[in-house]
């Protein structure tokens, strides 16, 4: 469904992505693992059109979306839940959700979907008139995901959805993510620093290091790999065999 090939991106002067290729099939959860500055977030931003690709292609359902504006990409069915939540604190929970549907014109369906989101994340139902800024971190993350779902995507891009959250809450969030995938067939590409969580969640994964994909495989295999330990530990794990 999503095929990224030979993608190069610059972040200012930094060559952030050096020709990465990856794919996500429909209904699949795929994880992109790497340390700080490896290029994970840039990869998501390049897919959703927030960052311009210097070269390479992104195709989605066989359409080239490499140089298409972010709103058109949302309409094509890709929704990006950015790192650090990025909800609008001065708007109510409900208004935040409505903003997620900014590309849609079918108001009665939007209303229905709002209801669905509140079922999916019951805490949001209780707080629908509250300012989003007053929510806890976990609740804000749920709101960010719900807002992402309001555009009715077929592919969800999640950037570090559990960063800074307590483990119990992180588990809660991932339970919903798995539900969305299993019950609704949503394809999900997750970026994670926490390799242990991510590998338990997804079927397939990629290890990214300084803008290059170092390893591809199913998660059972990746768990055993040295590169993973390196990325997981977040430092140079290379040693020699004297």
């Amino acid at each position, binding site marked *: 469904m999503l095929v990224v090939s030979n993608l190069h991106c610059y972040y200012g002067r930094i060559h952030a992505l050096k020709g990465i290729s990856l794919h996500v099939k429909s209904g699949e959860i795929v994880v992109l693992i790497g340390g700080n500055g490896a290029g994970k977030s840039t990869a998501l931003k390049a897919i959703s059109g927030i960052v311009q690709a210097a070269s390479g292609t992104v195709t989605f359902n066989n359409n080239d979306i490499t140089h298409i504006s972010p709103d058109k990409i949302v309409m094509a069915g890709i929704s990006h839940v950015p790192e650090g939540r990025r909800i609008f604190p001065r708007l109510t929970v409900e208004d935040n959700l409505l903003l997620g549907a900014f590309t849609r014109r079918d108001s009665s369906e939007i209303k229905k979907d709002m209801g669905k989101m509140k079922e999916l994340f019951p805490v949001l139902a209780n707080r629908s008139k509250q300012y989003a800024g007053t929510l806890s971190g976990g609740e804000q993350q749920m709101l960010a995901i719900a807002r992402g779902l309001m555009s009715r995507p077929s592919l969800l891009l999640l950037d570090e959805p559990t960063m800074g959250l307590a483990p119990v809450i992180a588990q809660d969030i991932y339970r919903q993510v798995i539900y969305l995938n299993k019950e609704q067939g949503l394809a999900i590409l997750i970026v994670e620093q926490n390799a242990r969580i991510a590998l338990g969640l997804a079927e397939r994964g*990629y290890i990214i290091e300084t803008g290059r994909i170092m390893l591809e495989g199913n998660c059972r295999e990746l768990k055993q790999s040295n590169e993973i330990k390196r990325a997981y530990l977040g430092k140079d794990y290379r040693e020699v065999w004297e």
Partner: protein
Amino acid sequence: MTYFDPVHETMPREELDVLRLERLQSTLNRAYLNVAHYRRAFDDVGILPEDIMSIDDLQSLPLTTREDIEANYPYDMFAVPLREVVRMHRPSAKSSKPVVTGYTRNDLINWARLVARYMVASGVTKDDVVQIAFRYGLLSGGLGMHAAAELIGASVIPTGVGNTAEQIMIMQDYLTTVLACTPRYALVLMDTVKQMHVNPRALRLKTGIMGGEPLSLELRKEIESGLGIEVFDNYGSSLVMGPGIAGECQVHEGLHVYEDYFIAEVIDPKSLKRLDPGEKGELVITTLTREAYPLIRYRTGDITSIMEDSCPCGRTHMRLSGFYGRVDNSFKVKGIMVNPSRIEQILSEQGVDTRFQVRVYMEGARELSEVLLEVKEGLFFDEMRAQETFIERIERAMYAGLGVRMKVKIVPGAVISGRGVVVDERP
């Protein structure tokens, strides 16, 4: 049709190529970062891993030769630290210099799965009793087959090579249904079956999973009718991984290369240019998932050709038409690879610089080989004793250097003229 891994074995071509490119790129990234030889080789031609943007671009990368591997012996071709390596094998030496290959845990898991693809394609199930008469030990044949047969859940009998009479007793008593061995060892078994007056039809054998040396049509027919089995061929290379790089399916028209794990090219061994499907040349392999020992455009020395048309079995992976010997005239005796240039080297170490010829032949079911040396000054002995001592010395050196016993004879030049360095008289 049954497959061990239906998703990957029958993957639509377009999807398969996406996966292959991703795996190729990550392999190149790892090799470039972790193996000094590849970094140098890429830098020499001014190519970075990210310059390879399609499978076709692979052609711009340098080939990896046996000499490269030998020069980096033992561990400099490894792409992971030794503590990540859980197994090592040593392919048979093609020169005085040894080589070694290593496997991470994932490499071993993948290896077993690949051989299992071939076994399932050969009809092996968990109800089978699989007798593995490949060499165990430093060579990869025995353990490679073993792990896959266990993975499928078959009952595995690890007999190894040799003790042929006992093997046949086991075959009868344990109700062996699948025989795994080299084609030549199958001939030895057939012969022993005859000598022991065992009726091959009374055995439960139904399938032969074979590899390790070229399987000609005649050889296949002989084994199939002699043991009453269906033979499935597979291709392996000890350095690349072991058995399970390519394997036949029930259609018996070529061997499917497991293309999600390997890229196979066929090149002209002289011009080094890539050849078209159907043209015979040297097989070049690039690994796509190997962690401990990635190989990029490795020249296997084996001669084959590519078949690109689709196979009725439903597998989307391209096939190799079969194997037709070695680029360097190497041959196998008793499962051990012998290279004529190695023989030349041993002779020169012993101070012998005469023309020679290697003859491989059968005596009953026994494979024998001899080195014929052209008689000339300095190789002429008045005394019988002196000649015997000389021959003994050369034979000992051959055994030490090749790992296989070869008789040595001194003959007139006319005997060896015009027949090439290697004369293989085996069927």
